């Protein structure tokens, strides 16, 4: 499980930062430009999946383990839900956008109340959960097949 060739690894190492940055941009500017939490989260997950594919399976525990991703998943949906509940307590309606935006701050980054907060929550959630799904599916595919020497070595490593 040493991953792909040196060329692929190097290119992925250069690209991963840009992909991650683009994903974060899509999430943060979701209320101004096309995009939002879901699409940005998918791009963020793609950055990690790219590293995972290029460097091989063992890198997963080093950079970003499955458990951390699961916790981030929960944190994301809690942020979203907390925004909804705050709307209930401050405005009286579930998902009330209780921070009103003045007309002069339209089309600025800090505008439109709870929408950017919800976007960040969804972005965290979608990114982490897609990564978890990918890791689980990849891991299952590696564990299940017939026994060969490499896989046996690897299973012993895990124990």
């Amino acid at each position, binding site marked *: 499980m040493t991953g792909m060739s040196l060329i692929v690894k190097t290119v992925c190492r250069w690209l991963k930062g840009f992909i991650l940055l683009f994903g974060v941009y899509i999430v943060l500017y979701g*209320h101004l430009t096309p995009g939002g939490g879901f699409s940005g989260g998918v791009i963020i997950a793609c950055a990690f999946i790219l590293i995972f594919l290029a460097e091989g399976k063992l890198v997963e525990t080093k950079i970003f383990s499955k458990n951390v991703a*699961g916790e981030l998943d929960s944190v994301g949906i809690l942020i979203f839900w907390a925004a909804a509940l705050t709307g209930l307590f401050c405005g009286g309606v579930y998902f009330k956008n209780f921070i009103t935006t003045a007309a002069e701050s339209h089309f600025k980054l800090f505008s*439109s109340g709870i929408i950017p907060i919800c976007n960040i929550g*969804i972005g965290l959630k979608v990114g982490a959960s897609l990564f978890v799904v990918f890791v689980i599916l990849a891991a*299952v595919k590696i564990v299940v097949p017939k026994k060969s020497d490499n896989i046996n070595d690897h299973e012993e490593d*895990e124990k």
Partner: protein
Amino acid sequence: MTLEYIVAALIILMIMGAVTALETDNLLSSIIALGAVGFLLAIAFLFLGAPDIAFTQIVVEILLLIILIRVTIHRDLKTTTAHRAMFGWTFAIVLIAFLTWFGLTVFEEFPAFGTAVMDRVADSASVTYIKEGLAKSGAGNLVTAVLLDFRAFDTLGEATVLFCAILGALAILRQKAHKHSKEKDQEADAA
């Protein structure tokens, strides 16, 4: 009123199918029962005037479910090589004809090409979104304004679906369970 009775009958059939899927011992019959539930839900969507969701329902609930289960669970699935019965062919042809008829009916109701769809009704929700979306939500992107302000509850449901899907995937596909079942298989083989 008849619509309510039809939907109620479909829901009763769906509950029966779900109970069958839970109670049966054979995995294949369980999948078939679950597919029947999905198919009945698709028919209910057709009657409720949502053919697009009905098509999605058929694709996801019946086809994808079977393919996913076939991929993830290697054991316990028997394949049959017998010829398809007459009933199967008739049912397939009737199903395709039925869906085609529904699709054509929908096409007839489409507005003519080039006409504005969003403001056909003067005080519809879409007109309100377009006119007052920026002022009410403050978001420059109207799609996000609808997704996270006017219809945020839908989005929460969507996120919850994703969350539950991840929970299910983690529960079914975690490595410990696989090792455990492997050991069980070995014990069964030894015994």
